[in-house]
């Protein structure tokens, strides 16, 4: 157990605007291996939601199957959760979103869950631009089935099994960019300072927000020959930008040297402040993001940070022009045409 929750709490635990402490955003005690990257991502989700003062019941958390997909049990215990079937979280999240457009949907998946069995659902949820956060906890291995290579394992990377992988990996961020995802980011489970604001920005984004988080599997893929080990990522990680998320109520206080920073205003008035680490990245250009990712890869580096955002994105409800009221709140009055209308239909069928 990597992150056990102590029973005793400091009485002066800080409270957010709603009067909740982080405890109100925690979940059950994790049963993952000590040191598993996935637990750090859960902690980042807890922190992101606490800081944003999101009422816990305004979130619905969904997942597929895998160690990564188990994690929704370990965060946001006051939110409804749905651990569905392997690779099918996107469909369940899409349906849930159709029923109630007012909740925040956080989908958690793994690299096996997303890039293999669930690849079809992943790409189609990108295309639909469902308003949700999609986090792929990518460890380059099938954790729960004990260490098989996954479709994101790099060529030559060696897991505990020892055989170097021979096949081309699927780069999920590139795929998402090419399919028109409206928010694409990459991060590392060990970099809380980058991950927390990215999750917050993803929540604020209206549409499909994809974050590929490299999340080492200490048990099966943290070996010296692995490109998804803690050591490898720490040595090869490069940030495109540092991200600071500013909820709309707050005043912008951070100051950057001129020319090195951008600010993106989201549809709800919140802002993402970015300090550029690489001047070549234009976060409004898919082409620039794709090119830069290729370049870094050629240098054996993993590019992280916010890679692309379209803050004017229109989610699927806007495209479909569904009513502003959550569909699940409609009653007989709005839904049932009644017997007089039925009689007219009968008449037309004679």
């Amino acid at each position: 157990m990597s992150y056990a929750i102590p029973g005793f709490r400091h009485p002066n635990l800080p409270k957010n605007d709603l009067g909740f402490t982080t405890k109100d955003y925690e979940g059950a005690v994790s049963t993952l291996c000590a040191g598993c990257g996935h637990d750090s991502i859960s902690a980042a989700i807890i922190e992101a939601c606490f800081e944003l003062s999101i009422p816990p019941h305004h979130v619905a958390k969904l997942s597929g199957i895998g160690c990564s997909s188990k994690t929704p049990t370990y965060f946001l215990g006051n939110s409804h959760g749905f651990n569905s079937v392997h690779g099918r979280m996107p469909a369940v999240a899409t349906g849930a979103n159709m029923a109630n457009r007012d909740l925040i949907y956080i989908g958690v998946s793994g690299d096996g869950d997303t890039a293999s069995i669930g690849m079809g659902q992943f790409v189609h949820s990108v295309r639909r631009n469902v308003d949700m956060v999609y986090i792929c906890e990518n460890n380059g291995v099938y954790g729960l089935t004990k260490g098989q290579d996954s479709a994101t394992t790099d060529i030559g990377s060696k897991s505990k099994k020892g055989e170097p992988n021979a096949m081309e990996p699927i780069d999920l961020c590139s795929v998402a960019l090419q399919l028109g995802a409206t928010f694409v980011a990459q991060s590392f489970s060990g970099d809380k300072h980058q991950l927390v604001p990215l999750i917050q920005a993803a929540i604020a984004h209206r549409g499909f927000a994809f974050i590929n988080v490299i999340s080492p599997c200490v048990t099966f893929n943290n070996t010296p020959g692995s490109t998804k080990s803690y050591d490898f990522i720490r040595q090869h990680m490069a940030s495109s930008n540092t991200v600071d998320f500013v909820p709309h109520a707050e005043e912008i206080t951070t100051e950057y040297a001129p020319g090195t920073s951008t600010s993106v205003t989201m549809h709800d008035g919140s802002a993402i402040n970015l300090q550029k680490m690489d001047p070549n990245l234009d976060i409004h250009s898919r082409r620039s993001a794709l090119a830069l990712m290729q370049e870094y890869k050629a240098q054996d580096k993993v590019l992280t940070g916010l890679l692309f955002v379209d803050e004017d994105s229109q989610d699927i409800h806007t495209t479909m022009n569904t009513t502003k009221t959550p569909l699940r709140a409609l009653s007989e009055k709005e839904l049932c045409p009644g017997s007089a209308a039925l009689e007219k239909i009968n008449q037309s069928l004679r």
Partner: protein
Amino acid sequence: MKREIITNLFVVKFANVNGTGSASANRLFSKAVFRMGVPVSPKNIFPSNIQGLPTWYEVRINENGFLGRRGGIDVVVGMNPQSMERDIGELERGGYFVYDSSKPLDKKMLRDDIDYIGIPFTEICRTEYTDPRQQQLFRNVMYIGSLAALLNIEFDVLTGLITDQFKGKEKLIAPNVHALELGFKYAQEHFDCPIAFRVERRDNVGNKILIDGNSACGLGAVYGGATVSAWYPITPSTSVIDAFARYCRRFRVDPETGEKNFAIVQAEDELAAIGMVIGAAWNGARAFTATSGPGVSLMTEFLGLAYFAEVPTVLIDVQRAGPSTGMPTRTQQSDVLTCAYASHGDTRHICLYPSNPKECFEFTATALDLADRLQTPVIILSDLDLGMNDNMCDPLEWDDTRTYDRGKVFTAEDLDAMEKRFGRYLDVDGDGIPYRTYPGTHPTKGSFFTRGTSKDEYAVYTEAGEKYVANMDRLLRKWDTAKKLVPAPVIRKTKQPCTIGVVYFGTSEAPTLEALYHLEDLHGISLDSLGIKALPFADEIADFIEAHDYVFVVEQNRDAQMRSLLISEFDICPDQLVSLLHYDGSPITARQIRREIRDWILRTTTTPRRRGRK
């Protein structure tokens, strides 16, 4: 030859080429007979093809109201040279072959026990119209005009239908009526009209309507309050969603803002379609999907999840001939077992078996209630015959005082008032049905984790054997509760006690009831019957079987699936259930049922059969 005049009791079959626009002309014919007050049942027989292959439209005209397929053809309208030989071969003796005589008929097509009526449709069209598309379309309308003369159909009824059809496009009325007249006149001038088969006005349809089962399902989903639908196209279920969309556009769009009170998602496959339905229903919306056999196969993993995690799920399976792609445009009742036990592990699902469009409408609305009440998948098993053909049935009804049964759902107030801990899977009422909450209900109470893994009453993960068993047994209690909520079987008893019964379901209903009528009328054999409307089976079904020495089970599949289901659900001695099967992809006929029952009874009463009793 002196011929007997046959009024309102015959079968007309149109042989056409797929994609030539014959469907709407053929529909005009059925509707005209219907409007003359004579019961009619048309059936499309079409290939898995968009253009070029043979397609047929078989219309049974029966003033006594028998609507199943009869078997045998009396009049063929042969507009397709490809299928001509076969079409002529199918005619009963004394039948008529109406054909396009623009080309002479091959000698080998001639039979001496039928009449030939050649009308040069193509030629007339070529002189009347210059546009080739018009030539093709009006040729169809023209043969309907000829039939009107030949079969004595009231011409006014046809023009009335044309006027209705082109409401808003009035320019098209005159040319269509003209085409009807051309056909009518030619037939009248060249043949002795009417021929021996005739339609005569009756008052035998009352206030009945003519609608296809899929439209009725789509409309039932609108009335039943479905707001989310996800689907993947597959014949013969596609028109369920088309109808849902059509009626939603009519009834569920805000006239001012254009905002929609529904969401329809065309999914990437059936796995996604059912996943979306489950997600929406979990989140408190009424949701459904429609598919056919291959789609059901893809949905089975998710159906197991919905059963075990107890998520309301409505699935309409419009069955077609399998296995695999089988005969995708032909009908069967062959998903009975697959639907009953879909998925891995110990699963069983509520199944509803509608027999006519009215039941399609009602069962779809009811399925949405049942799914919410019982928190489990409900599968409606329609079929291609019912779904894609116009069926005559009683008018659809809706009681305006009816409210949606959303089942056991705790609100924020309920949770605040609750002293004990909320247990998602606690059997509070002893009926096996627990209480649920929708996501977003309360900031700190009532949340739970939905999963396909084993859990205790509080939705907490556990692999403790006794907890697992307690949960599985509760699901069986729920199944027992369902028995009392699903549509009841329909039992018809003869006046005298009888030892043989007949069980049927779905589209085998009309031909079975007709066969029973004729068995009594022609052979003096009276049998009791029972129509199964739902699984779980009501106890009356077991009682019915128990009360008879032998029971026929009529079904449209090879493996006698309903019989197997009865045997396994009730622990019945298999010898007691006699299979009556039909599975060539066409709807079962009353003739087949009558003959098989008659022959079996003759055989068994002359050579006594013994059956083992347990």
